[in-house]
């Protein structure tokens, strides 16, 4: 009797879930029908280049679909996004009264879909934004796991897309693109700055790779090997490790035996924390430790304990000392970072720069386009030439804006235990850098 009751409850619950789900799908289905028309219209427009006026004048808002890693290991990049969104949308929708589209002032609304830091889910999430939510423009972010599949969705459904936060080389693997565009850093330029930084140090020029089996690790191995070939540097490669490894002692032992004084590590923060602590336990402290991918946040450096983070060098993708401003917010990079620190706890995260630049470009593109016709929007995106918190940005022949990625060092700070200083920015000379580089105190023991 009790079992029967349970089953009845279950059936009712399932029916509710199914009805709820089908209603959601049905909504999608019916509006997909509308959108089929819209989609056809946009396809025709692509060919003819004429704006489809009736489809856009009925709009009450501009929908931006943001497929982003809200959960999973990449979610850390999205931490400051709500704060930046509130700031920028306030400037666009409230202070400027929206954007003039086909004679109407329309506000921007951002719809998020969680990629769960997974490329398969990124594809599904972006497809849902395009086919069900009918977004006017697609935004995708962070690493090739997000940027590449979201760009594929843009190409398949012929919708303008703007992606950011991946190495340009990895993103271009999915090209040539027609509808997808990107704001990415260039791995070659980054490695150039890192090698320039090493050149300023007195070391035995032995470089040890601590690279993971992920795409960034593979890219790092290829680029460093190519760039260091024929130079005075000698490479020592103990082999790739798997993300999530908890025992690096074998690798550390090899690096120590090879007398490696420069380590270049491509590690997420938890892996690096484990690795670096084991290095100290093993009594192996290289003169230079340069890390890509991880250690972007001051709290992470503090977590290394004692003096463990002092002097760690890393690839910084944005810094408050960039001498540039946001045209949308009317604030300099320093002012934006300081505002973040005054309204939030802790050291500013660098991903603020990417988020602000994205809204700068979005505002500029939509204002210039003056319509939500897809082909016109794409043309407006590709014609972008704007000064942002990354400096002047415009697209190259691969539809990519290359943003600075420069060598930076964590050093003891005044406001926070650690603060970062740009130590090599030869590839982007407008960005000031500091000399001399201080070899980590820990290495001098």
């Amino acid at each position, binding site marked *: 009797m009790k079992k029967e009751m349970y089953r009845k409850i279950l059936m009712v619950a399932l029916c509710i879930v199914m009805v709820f789900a089908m209603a959601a799908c049905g909504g999608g289905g019916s509006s997909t029908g509308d959108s089929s028309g819209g989609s056809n219209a946009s396809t025709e427009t692509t060919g003819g280049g004429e704006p489809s006026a009736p489809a856009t004048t009925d709009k009450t808002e501009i929908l931006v679909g943001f497929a982003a890693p809200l959960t999973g290991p990449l979610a850390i990049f999205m931490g400051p996004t709500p704060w930046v969104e509130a700031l920028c949308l306030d400037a666009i929708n409230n202070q400027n009264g929206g954007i003039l589209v086909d004679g109407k002032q329309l506000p921007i609304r951002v719809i998020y879909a969680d990629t769960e830091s997974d490329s398969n889910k990124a594809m599904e999430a972006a497809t849902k934004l395009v086919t069900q939510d009918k977004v006017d423009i697609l935004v995708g972010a962070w690493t090739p796991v997000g940027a590449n599949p979201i760009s594929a969705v843009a190409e398949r459904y012929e919708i303008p897309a703007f992606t950011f936060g991946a190495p340009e080389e990895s993103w271009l693997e999915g090209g040539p693109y027609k509808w997808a565009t990107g704001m990415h850093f260039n791995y070659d330029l980054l490695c150039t700055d890192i090698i320039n930084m090493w050149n300023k140090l007195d070391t035995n020029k032995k470089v040890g790779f601590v690279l993971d089996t992920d*795409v960034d690790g593979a890219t790092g191995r290829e680029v460093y090997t190519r760039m260091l070939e024929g130079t005075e540097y000698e490479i020592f490669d103990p082999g790739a490790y798997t993300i999530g490894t908890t025992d690096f002692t074998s690798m550390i032992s090899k690096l120590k035996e090879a007398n490696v004084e420069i380590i270049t590590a491509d590690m997420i923060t938890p892996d690096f924390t484990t690795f670096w602590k084991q290095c100290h336990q093993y009594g192996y402290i290289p003169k230079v430790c340069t890390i890509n991918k991880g250690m972007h946040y001051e709290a992470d450096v503090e977590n290394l304990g004692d003096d463990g983070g002092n002097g760690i060098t890393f690839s910084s993708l944005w810094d408050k000392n960039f001498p540039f401003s946001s045209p949308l917010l009317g604030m300099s990079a320093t002012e934006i970072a300081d505002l973040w620190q005054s309204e939030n706890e802790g050291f500013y995260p660098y991903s603020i720069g990417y988020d602000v630049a994205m809204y700068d470009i979005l505002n500029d593109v939509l204002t210039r386009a003056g319509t939500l016709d897809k082909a016109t929007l794409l043309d407006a995106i590709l014609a972008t030439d704007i000064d942002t918190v990354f400096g002047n940005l415009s697209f190259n022949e691969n539809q990519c804006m290359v943003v600075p990625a420069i060598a930076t060092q964590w050093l003891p700070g005044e406001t926070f235990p650690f603060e970062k200083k740009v130590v090599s920015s030869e590839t982007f000379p407008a960005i000031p850098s500091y000399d001399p580089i201080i070899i980590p105190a820990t290495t001098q023991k």
Partner: protein
Amino acid sequence: MSSVFNKIKDNVTEGVRENQEDAIKRGAGAGKRTILIWGIAIIVLVTVPTYAGDYVLNVMILMLLYMALGQMWNLLGGYAGLVSLGQQSFIGIGGYALAIVSQKYGLPALLAFGIAAGVSVVFALVISIPIFKMQGVYFTIGTWIVSECLALWFSTWAWANYAQGYNITITYQMTATHIYYVALAIGVGSLIVVFFILRSRLGLALMAMRDNESAAEVRGVELYRTKLKCFLISACVTGVAGAGIYLQQAFIQPTNAFGISWTVSMVFMVVIGGLGTVEGPIIGAVIYVVLRQVLYNFPGISMVILGIIAIAIILLAPKGIMGIFGRRVTIDIFSVRRK
């Protein structure tokens, strides 16, 4: 751990047996009705692109492909008693077959499906040598380890473009309708394969093994060969489904292609649908895909909600949805018995 695993296996076996008994009870008098249902279903499925938009088509594509995966996992776990956590090996092989054939060599994508099937069968045959020496939980873990090894190997394999993987750009030009018909062929194909297997001598042997391996062996069922056949068929269809999935996904990387999350999805679908039934993975796939779509509206907590729903269903209906329907509804559109 072994005793816990055996207990779970006993419960599963008991649940499967009860589901089958229910199916037998439903049996007679469903002939004409079954043909009618099949006919309507085929007409509806074939004509979906004429009246549905891109979103519904995409949801249908996912349902069909996930259903194929669920059917194959069910064939192993529900009938042959081979609880595998490594079916993603064949999804990855299928996906990479598509990527390498079309992207690296510029050959027709259709060719990739044949290669995916062939390579998956050969790979399954090779790994069956060590894997089939393991039993129970050891087999389960062994299959998982094979997948992890594949992920590592592909991540460091230059020919497969290391961990960068491939954007399968040939699929950019394909519309949702094109992909839908491919998915329909794979989904219905998997259903037909399972249906005819279960109505064959192999199916009888599988069900006998599932109920009692020792008794089946005494009655002349060759356990090793029967399991191997089942494993190879499952690998073949999963490989083809993998190619279909990446035709839809358009981007493949080793960590995702060989990730455990594929098998978690398969287990979810089969368990909530009903283990050891042909209808179970169909219902499971529909529920799973619809839930996933709805849960996109709850970013950040979607996985938590999905997990709670899964736990609730497992607790309240351990034999899955089919276990509940089996006692009440007499429609049996996938009767595994010859009438």
